[in-house]
């Protein structure tokens, strides 16, 4: 006996779907294939067994990768060009495919649905009348439909009239169903995406990367600063010239001041006086980071002294103690320049438009005929705008200069 099951929202919770497939197998139904477009699952009767299924979304995979089929741990079930399904009898196989394909796809869906929902909420909020009418229509369509139709003086006859009459009731229902579906999608994905993030090895806890042997704990530091053993140095907006801070930190270490901690926002450096040592520092900028970023650098001997609170557009201060040759965070010209370019581009592209806006606003202050240019009331804001504009502009220019310094360092070598 074969069995076909329609499961429209299977991909919103892949883990649950996989559990369901295992349950089906335990009940004597083995998965034959999945019609992904129609969301149909085809089963055939089999001997009940404990089998674990994995559905993998991998674009252009074109079949089950042979590496999983070696050693007979996994068996191929079915595959299309972008999906494959494998199963195993082992509870904890040595390696398992990543959920990353589903995670990144569901993240995109959640983002788009979120924007549509925001738009819908705004539309409804702006025009409350629509909402009230919608509620009225909903009350009518809830069971009184037939009565309403029989009461009509003129029964709809032509196809267009029938269509219009049906649409009068169907339209709000369709709208409501769509909104319900969007809400379901959004909130369901919010839960399952978090679950998938964890399954992809991603947890927000970064403490595993912190060099506990070299970094002082907060309590320890407080105790030491009471005895005046900790030296605090503050720097403002140093991030826009990271190479200069790297050199400064290396010099401090060379003079025997060990970096032990940085403040949460990264503008204060805490040192203790000790033996001079050779340390290489690197301030690394990443558009987005994941656990493997921290893990790889840590394994390669780099110690993390600071990371931004945000996981996107994050700055990270890494240090590496050495004896002969200074270790390189980026070992070739291509990736070094790429990093510097990404850093300079991101910061200057976010600051320069703001700068332009302030210049425009200042122009308005100065030239608009309803403002008296010499009126002292407007000099205050004018000066503030000018200061902010110069500041933002200087940040942007400094990041660009950093890029050129990095580029020049290769020309000198």
């Amino acid at each position: 006996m074969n069995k076909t099951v329609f499961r429209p929202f299977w991909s919103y919770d892949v883990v649950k779907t996989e559990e369901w497939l295992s349950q089906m197998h335990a009940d004597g139904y083995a998965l034959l294939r999945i019609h992904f477009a129609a969301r149909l699952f085809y089963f055939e009767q089999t001997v009940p067994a404990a089998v674990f299924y994995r559905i993998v979304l991998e674009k252009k995979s074109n079949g089950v990768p042979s590496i999983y089929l070696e050693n007979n741990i996994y068996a191929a079930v079915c595959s299309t060009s972008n999906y494959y399904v494998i199963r195993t009898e082992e509870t904890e196989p040595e390696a398992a495919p990543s959920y990353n394909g589903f995670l990144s796809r569901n993240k995109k869906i959640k983002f788009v649905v979120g924007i549509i929902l925001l738009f819908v909420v705004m539309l409804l909020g702006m025009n409350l009348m629509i909402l009230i009418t919608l509620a009225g229509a909903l009350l009518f369509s809830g069971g009184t439909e037939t009565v309403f139709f029989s009461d009509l003086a003129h029964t709809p006859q032509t196809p267009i009239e029938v269509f219009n009459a049906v649409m009068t009731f169907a339209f709000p229902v369709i709208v409501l169903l769509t909104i319900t579906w969007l809400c379901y999608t959004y909130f369901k994905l919010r839960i399952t995406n978090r679950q998938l993030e964890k399954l992809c090895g991603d947890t927000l806890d970064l403490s595993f990367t912190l060099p506990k042997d070299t970094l002082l704990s907060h309590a320890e530091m407080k105790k030491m600063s009471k005895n005046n053993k900790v030296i605090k140095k503050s720097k403002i907006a140093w991030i826009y010239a990271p190479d200069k801070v790297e050199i400064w930190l290396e010099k401090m270490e060379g003079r025997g001041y060990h970096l032990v901690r940085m403040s949460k926002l990264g503008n204060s450096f805490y040192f203790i006086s000790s033996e001079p040592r050779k340390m290489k520092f690197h301030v690394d900028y990443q558009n987005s980071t994941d656990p493997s970023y921290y893990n790889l650098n840590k394994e390669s001997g780099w110690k993390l002294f600071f990371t931004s609170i945000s996981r996107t557009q994050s700055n990270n201060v890494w240090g590496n103690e050495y004896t002969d040759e200074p270790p390189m965070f980026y070992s070739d010209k291509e990736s070094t320049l790429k990093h510097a370019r990404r850093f300079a581009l991101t910061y200057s592209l976010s600051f320069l438009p703001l700068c332009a806006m302030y210049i425009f606003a200042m122009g308005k202050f100065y030239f608009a005929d309803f403002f008296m240019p010499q009126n002292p009331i407007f000099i205050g804001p004018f000066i503030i705008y000018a200061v902010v504009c110069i500041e933002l502009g200087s940040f942007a220019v400094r990041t660009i200069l950093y890029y050129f310094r990095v580029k020049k360092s290769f020309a000198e070598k």
Partner: protein
Amino acid sequence: MISEKVRKAYIPMSETAYYILLSLSEPRHGYGIIKFVEELTENRIILGSGTVYGTLAKMYKDKLISIYDDKDRKTIYRITGDGRQLILLEIERVKKVYVNTLTQEGYFHE
């Protein structure tokens, strides 16, 4: 089949990218790649971790590599069909370079 765009972007390959793909003859994690390349080239090439992370991220985006396993924070990568095709193309090129090198080398020794 790998797209023309990917082929143009990767061939000829930088030494770093070449050795990273070459090391994926079996699934490895980032640090495993660094160590393997170090051994293979007898410490001639010591890859920086930032370089490896960036290159792997790019190759993953271009579907040359995929994740073999990522259960506990350690992402292990494997080469995909596209990646295999690309490295074979590059190996062919490098072989030709090697043959040309051998025939020409003698003229430069005095």
